[in-house]
């Protein structure tokens, strides 16, 4: 955090000065470790063992926050008799189909609720095999019965609490020592600290970044932390939570208003051809009727009205049929395979540099070279724009410029100060940027580009039926200045939504399913309340409470902590004075506190829903997790995950050791690409004996397009390096400051050697495991003042099955002293490694 989110880390330091203890779990010693109380070096890819052992510690010792757990989680819920755990099936949950390598989650359901959540199963057949990938669920995830059978004594063998206890029983401090390389004493210190620091009076927070997500079990890493935090009562409370530190200025915004294949704005699922023939079927299947997700018809219809305006009517399903349909995985790496196969003809790359920034860069570049046309918009000539001229495949002789048929358009982009608009930061906060000046030359904002491109496309339409979604599209924004820049404020206002009177809405609770409201993204509804751009609010922090509600605007409803009803006890009183945040004021008959309550303002704690209630009315006054169909925090996930209702430790796809817990070495549901462009290092391969992990440096930004061309930053971090321990350096004859060659089956590259005690060899499974760390900011060009080999070229194309994110944080490699071979010889070396490793 100190390295990659430095200014955010000032608050951690401040908390430490006030008595907080800070633990840093990371394979490397970094600036964060230097400022933490304890650094626990861990083997990359083993975090579920560590977190699972903490859960086991809590459950065995009865250290959970029982009142919170009973009231706010599904600990007491009974699970179907058909459910079988990984402990019973040697690493598989019940419902696995080895042929399709996917789960049928029906046996994971709550007891006696077999008639739901069956939406995803109504049709059977091929699509059934994609149990719960990202192409399956919007934010609502899967639904569960709002009032399942429970055992409040938590003793029933099939209640979630007991299932958890059995599941995690083998996750012991001994196992942590064996698999993570963390000593029992260090583990005991951590376990004692987090349990002592949780409960009524205190809370513990977990902070993570892509070190947790870029794994074939990435979503389950977060799940494991969720279980721990729910057991300790650390969700929805100040100083608690599981905080994702996101790496880019508006990566949260790109998720909320997604340029992602599987969702529409506000986490509504993209329609699927197999399941959603019409609007009615979509609304029926996409989530439960209880909890706030029960209003999804209002959210979706308002979105369709925002996009297709008067053309969207009740009679035509509000133009639901205009939405294109998914038929499976259409994610980034699958799209690249489509480029290589020739199905994808044209590609827009906007402020992104996949030739350097995506895993397995060679496959990316093969895809780019097989396009008909490519549009790149950026501030400098990034490698993705110039691959045909100077890409590594030209150097090895695999490609020749004259043979590459891709037509390339490079359009220069406006910088962040040359346009206005909002970024959504890591805490869901929308902050409006004022424009300082016009962009130079041909530089334009992406808003300008898409708006004018849309207009030009619309001028070229025919009367054809397939053109109707474009013809009917609402595509008319006020234009300003000599460049005819569309108004970003008008776009933000459309996102916010308007009511029947044409005035800006102030809350998503005003949205209606009858076509009378329009809203481009329901979770952002309220940012333009009263026709005021709340994202532009700038009341200085020192003039406000520490919650600072008048700086920018956080979705939803300017709430700063989600699910904050849980900061009060079931009766609505703060758990303690120290941790008071949101509470029930019985006299006024409403929820109040330091933040906007994440609850219906006047629903009393003793509210109990009538049987036929729907949406939020079906949740009781003690159900804080209002987006869940049962209002509970899910310790156990009865449906909605692709790889199991509970986290289990699997080794990374590429690992030097065998999984001692189960016969299953790696996540059985992980997504692989079994084709020549995507080779893998075999597990436990002596040819690839070292654990490889990648990371960022403070002084650079991702693939480097925004940092390598800057003189200050280039000078601060001029060259790619690999961090190795003194012991590994001695074993391999690597000299500090000299060169090393790093090899996987995908690529061979060279880096300067940094011999440092910051990476420690770990004793794992009774033997020494060396880890090698590489930052990934360099490339061969991109207008960089400094250049270097492309670290991401080393990485495998293997994905988490829930979210299709690549495993970029734990794989294997070999390291050799000296510089890498050039030209054809580099390919020969790779070929030798592939031959050797497949023979072994």
């Amino acid at each position, binding site marked *: 955090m100190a390295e990659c*989110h*430095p*200014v955010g880390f000032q608050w951690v330091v401040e908390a430490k000065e006030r008595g907080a203890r800070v633990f840093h779990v990371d394979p490397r010693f970094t600036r964060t470790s230097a400022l933490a109380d304890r650094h626990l070096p861990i083997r990359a890819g083993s975090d579920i063992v560590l977190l699972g052992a903490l859960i086991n510690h809590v459950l065995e010792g009865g250290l959970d926050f029982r009142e919170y757990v009973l009231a706010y989680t599904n600990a007491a819920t009974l699970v179907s008799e058909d459910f079988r755990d990984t402990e019973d099936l040697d690493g598989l949950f019940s419902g696995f189909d080895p042929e399709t390598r996917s789960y049928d989650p029906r046996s994971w359901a709550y007891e006696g609720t077999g008639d739901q959540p069956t939406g995803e199963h109504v049709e059977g057949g091929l699509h059934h095999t994609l149990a719960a990938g990202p192409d399956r669920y919007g934010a609502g995830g899967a639904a569960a019965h709002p009032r399942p059978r429970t055992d409040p004594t938590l003793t029933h063998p099939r209640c979630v609490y007991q299932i958890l206890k059995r599941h995690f029983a083998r996750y012991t401090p001994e196992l942590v020592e064996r698999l993570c390389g963390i000593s029992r004493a260090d583990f005991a210190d951590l376990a004692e600290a987090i349990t002592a620091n949780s409960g009524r009076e205190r809370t513990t927070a977990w902070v993570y970044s892509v070190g947790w997500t870029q794994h074939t079990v990435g979503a389950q890493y977060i799940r494991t932390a969720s279980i721990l935090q729910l057991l300790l009562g650390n969700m929805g409370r100040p100083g608690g939570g599981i905080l994702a530190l*996101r*790496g*880019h200025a*508006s*990566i949260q915004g790109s998720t909320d*208003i997604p*340029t*992602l*294949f599987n969702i529409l*704005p506000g986490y509504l699922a993209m329609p699927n051809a197999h399941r959603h023939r019409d609007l009615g079927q979509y609304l029926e299947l996409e989530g439960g009727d209880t909890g706030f997700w029960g209003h999804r018809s209002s959210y979706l219809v308002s979105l369709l009205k925002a996009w297709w305006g008067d053309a969207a009517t009740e009679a035509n399903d509000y133009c639901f049929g205009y939405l*294109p349909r998914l038929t499976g995985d259409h994610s980034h790496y699958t*799209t690249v395979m*489509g480029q290589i196969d020739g*199905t*994808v003809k044209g*590609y*827009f*790359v*906007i*402020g*992104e540099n996949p030739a350097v*920034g*995506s895993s397995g860069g060679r496959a990316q570049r093969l895809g780019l070279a097989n396009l*008909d*046309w490519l*549009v790149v918009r950026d501030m400098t000539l990034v490698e993705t724009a110039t691959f045909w001229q100077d890409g590594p495949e030209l150097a090895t002789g695999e490609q020749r*410029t004259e043979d590459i*048929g891709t037509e390339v358009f*490079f359009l220069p982009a406006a910088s*962040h100060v040359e346009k206005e608009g909002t*970024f959504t*930061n*890591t805490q869901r*906060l929308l*902050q409006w*940027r*004022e424009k*300082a*000046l016009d962009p*130079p030359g041909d530089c334009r*904002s*992406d808003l300008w580009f898409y708006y004018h491109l849309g207009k030009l*496309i619309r001028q*070229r339409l025919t009367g054809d039926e397939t053109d109707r*979604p474009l013809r009917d599209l609402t595509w008319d924004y006020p234009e300003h200045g000599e460049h005819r820049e569309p108004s970003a404020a008008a776009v933000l206002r459309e*996102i916010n939504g308007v009511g029947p009177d044409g005035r800006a809405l102030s809350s998503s609770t005003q949205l209606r399913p009858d076509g009378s409201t329009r809203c*481009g993204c329901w979770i952002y509804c309220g940012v333009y309340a009263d026709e005021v751009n709340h994202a532009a609010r700038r*009341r*200085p*922090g020192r003039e406000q409470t*520490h919650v600072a509600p008048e*700086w920018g605007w956080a979705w939803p409803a300017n709430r700063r902590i989600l699910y904050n009803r849980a900061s009060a006890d079931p009766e609505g009183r703060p758990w303690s004075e120290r941790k008071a945040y949101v509470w029930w004021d019985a006299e006024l008959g409403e929820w109040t506190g330091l933040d906007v309550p994440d609850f219906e303002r006047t629903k009393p704690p003793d509210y109990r829903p009538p049987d036929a209630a729907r949406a939020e009315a079906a949740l009781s006054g003690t159900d804080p997790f209002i987006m869940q169909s049962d209002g509970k925090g899910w310790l156990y996930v009865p449906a909605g995950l692709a790889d199991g209702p509970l986290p289990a430790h699997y080794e990374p796809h590429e690992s030097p050791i065998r999984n001692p817990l189960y016969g299953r070495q790696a996540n059985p549901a992980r997504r692989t690409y079994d084709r020549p462009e995507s080779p893998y290092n075999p597990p436990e391969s002596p040819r690839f004996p070292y654990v490889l992990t990648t990371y960022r440096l403070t002084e650079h*930004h991702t693939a480097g397009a*925004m940092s390598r*061309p800057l003189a200050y*930053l280039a000078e601060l971090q001029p060259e790619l390096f690999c961090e190795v321990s003194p012991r590994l350096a001695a074993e391999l004859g690597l000299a500090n400051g000299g060169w090393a060659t790093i090899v996987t089956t995908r690529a061979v590259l060279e880096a300067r050697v940094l011999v440092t005690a910051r990476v420690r060899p770990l004793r794992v499974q009774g033997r020494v495991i060396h880890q090698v760390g590489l930052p990934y900011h360099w490339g061969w060009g991109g207008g960089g003042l400094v250049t270097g080999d492309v670290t991401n070229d080393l990485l495998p194309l293997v994905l988490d099955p829930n979210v299709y*994110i690549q495993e970029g944080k734990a794989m294997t490699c070999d390291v050799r002293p000296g510089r890498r071979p050039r030209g054809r010889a580099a390919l020969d070396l790779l070929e030798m490694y592939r031959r050797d490793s497949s023979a072994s």
Partner: protein
Amino acid sequence: MSRGGWLARWPVIRQLKGQDGRSDAARSARTDALRPRTEAADKVARSICPYCAVGCGQLVYVKDGRVTQIEGDPDSPISRGRLCPKGSASKQLVTHPGRQTQVLYRRPYGTAWERLDLDTAMDMIAERVVRTRRETWQQTHDGMVVRRTLGIAGLGGATLDDEENYLMKKLYTALGAIQVENQARI
């Protein structure tokens, strides 16, 4: 500051005489006359750092149509005026000489970039989108209505504004392009 003629006020002399060279004795008439660039700005825009998602506040100073300085915004309750090395260097992001300001075009099998004016490039891109969409349109797939094209794909970075993402998703969806992805998955 010490009294006397210009020689006596010369910092070197004052420092040689034993005054502290890290303090007032380092000042000269010239340093006293220096004004911060920020004071002379024609305009200050309130902005946000474009790098990581902490979202530190920035003040962007403009003079004579150029960005002269970018500093942390002390009002921000997130950053309290601070910027890390990247945020502090972001003036260079806007002003560095390697920044491209012209449209470039590489024709199929071409060996060099060519110039193209922006309007022509926009027309050519629009023409290609419409043509590719027609040529690759899928009305049905395995007997089911899909109304889409797999011929056009997009990948966006995560420094795009919310409003930009919105127009992108809106236009792509109306085009029937579904392979729309973002750094957020990478």
